[in-house]
């Protein structure tokens, strides 16, 4: 018997049991829906993350450079006293870098330049005739892609600043272009001064750029941004006389052209520093997405597993119901192999139907939900659910395969049926 004829017959007998076929397919459909959606979310998440990373990191840079700590993870043992500066963040200790570390890092083979990581929390920012606002000031990174409403980063080195659009509005500029060239004051508290009567000094900067709230930036965009030279002045004023003066949480380094970041990372390691390449940063986030996706797919797989029993059960009932038909076909000379195929192909049809129903629902649902999700998470015009036709097709093919496998046992029962027994009329 030809496969084509068997396939048509298989499809036809399913059509004759519409309700049963549909219900069995729906069980698989739930699995397909979950798996297709998790794959799409995974793809979207990876895309989103890689957007974030490519717009926040530079491939020839090393990040989070810090001093290597031997047993920092082992909290059960008392730690040796070291003469270094330690910052404590919610129980997590970090050895701070000082200027000699920065110098040492810049001398490491392959390092082109080192930028200490600086962040300053001013007392407030304001401008003449306006209210005072809290803010944080961060380092301007040229590799972070900012979208400007007005102006740009040109001239950022000269006592200038980039402000987010929200601050532009708060500080009373009606249009973004009005803000360009205007001055704002940043008030910094001297760290060593008496907290009850703090010494506060104003620093004045010219606005060169107004940036839009970015969709894919981790840092930058929500804070005021300044060039490293300007940052250092306010940072020093802020920390002068305190224990953390002249120390940095971490640093980033640019690598010389033609040298791989991995090599420099190893060089730094030998010099006693830890560093992360852009890939390391990515790897961590991707791993997180992968785990999340695996969990979701796990749920889908569970649904598929449940539907496997549904298929087996349905097909067994179908074999019982059609005992006479099977007997007749065998009496007419249909081969055992073909009888088995007929039932396996019926299972395949069920898998195909379920897979298609689930995938279509997932794609339709996901496409409708996409803008709503992006809006709810406030991430701008980003698609967090990305359907890849190849992965949808893979899911459908996979489910057809699973269905055929579940159909094996009932198909074998059908193939083994004795036509004489099957055709007994009593």
């Amino acid at each position, binding site marked *: 018997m030809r496969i084509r004829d068997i396939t048509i017959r298989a499809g036809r007998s399913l059509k004759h049991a519409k309700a049963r076929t549909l219900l069995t397919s729906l069980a698989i459909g739930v699995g397909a829906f979950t798996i297709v959606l998790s794959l799409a979310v995974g793809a979207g998440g990876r895309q989103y993350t890689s957007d974030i990373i490519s717009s926040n990191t530079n491939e020839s840079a090393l990040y989070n450079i810090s001093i290597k700590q031997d047993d920092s993870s082992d909290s059960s043992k008392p730690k040796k006293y070291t003469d270094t500066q330690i910052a404590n963040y919610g129980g997590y200790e970090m050895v701070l870098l000082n200027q000699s570390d920065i110098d040492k890092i810049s001398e490491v083979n392959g390092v082109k330049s080192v930028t200490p990581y600086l962040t300053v929390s001013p007392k407030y920012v304001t401008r003449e005739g306006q209210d005072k606002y809290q803010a944080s000031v961060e380092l301007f990174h040229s590799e972070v892609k900012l979208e400007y409403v007005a102006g740009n980063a040109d001239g950022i080195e000269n006592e200038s600043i980039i402000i987010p659009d929200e601050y532009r509005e708060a500080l009373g500029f009606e249009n973004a272009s009005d803000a360009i060239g205007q001055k704002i004051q940043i008030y910094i508290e001297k760290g060593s001064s008496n907290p009850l009567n703090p010494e506060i000094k104003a620093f004045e900067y010219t606005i060169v750029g107004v940036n839009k709230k970015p969709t894919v930036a981790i840092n930058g965009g929500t804070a005021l941004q300044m060039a490293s030279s300007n940052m250092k002045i306010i940072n020093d004023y802020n920390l002068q006389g305190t224990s953390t003066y002249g120390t940095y949480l971490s640093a980033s380094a640019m690598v010389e052209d033609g040298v791989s970041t991995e090599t420099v990372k190893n060089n730094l390691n030998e010099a006693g520093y830890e560093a992360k390449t852009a890939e390391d940063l990515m790897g961590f986030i991707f791993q997180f997405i992968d785990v999340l996706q695996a969990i979701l797919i796990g749920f889908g797989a569970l649904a598929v597993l449940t539907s496997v029993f549904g298929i087996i059960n349905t097909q067994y009932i179908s074999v019982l119901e059609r005992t006479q038909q099977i007997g007749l076909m065998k009496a007419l000379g249909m081969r055992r192999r073909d009888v088995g195929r007929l039932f396996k192909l019926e299972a395949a049809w069920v898998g195909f139907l379920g897979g298609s129903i689930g995938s279509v629902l997932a794609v339709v649902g996901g496409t409708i939900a996409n803008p709503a999700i992006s809006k709810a998470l406030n991430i701008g015009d980003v698609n967090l659910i990305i359907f890849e036709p190849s992965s949808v097709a893979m899911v459908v093919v996979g489910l057809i395969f699973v269905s055929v496998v579940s159909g094996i046992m009932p198909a074998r029962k059908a193939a083994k049926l004795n036509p004489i027994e099957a*055709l007994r009329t009593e």
Partner: protein
Amino acid sequence: MIEVKNVTKTYGKKDNTFVALDNVSFTIPDGASVAILGKSGSGKSTLMHAISGLDKPEKGEIIIDGKNILALNQKAIDKFRSKTISFIFQSFFVQANESCYDNVSLPLEISGTATNRRKKRIEDALSAVELLDKKKSRARDLSGGQKQRLAVARAIVSNPRILFADEPTGNLDSATGEVVEDLLFGYNKDNDVTLIIVTHDPDLAKRCDIQIHIKDGKVESIEGVK
């Protein structure tokens, strides 16, 4: 020619054995119409199953066209069933959900007949039983007599050399039964096809060339052999 030689078939094991066929031998010439007569439980159905390759007796030979079908492997038997023989059953066994056309198409699909050659043969078979106008009707919508005629169409579409009919009129009233009988005997005479009818109806048996009486698994008598 069909030669049945010393065929013995037993069911069950050891103490509980039941001899369904006991050393049965006879010969059927090509193109003959044969009635296998006997009460229920006499072994007549087992005999039909043996000749059609559905059942395997442990002893004896059944030689059809010079080949002992009891010695064939499963693949060859399946081929023999789809190419050489056909069945008509008391309960029709037409597929109620399917159209008449698809019912008749089944044997051709099983034998792997090319798609483009099927249509004419199916329509010829349907018109031979005067059901061409019901081509697209579902089998469940047919009357009993029509269902059996459909079964006849399904049996003759593959141009078999031997036609088995197991109580073909058992579920039909005498008028519709006669129509089916006429179809079977007509096909038998016109195409020189061997017709083997299993029945306990003496009137039907009388229309056959040969009557083989089976009792308790043994051939009681054979009438009509020249």
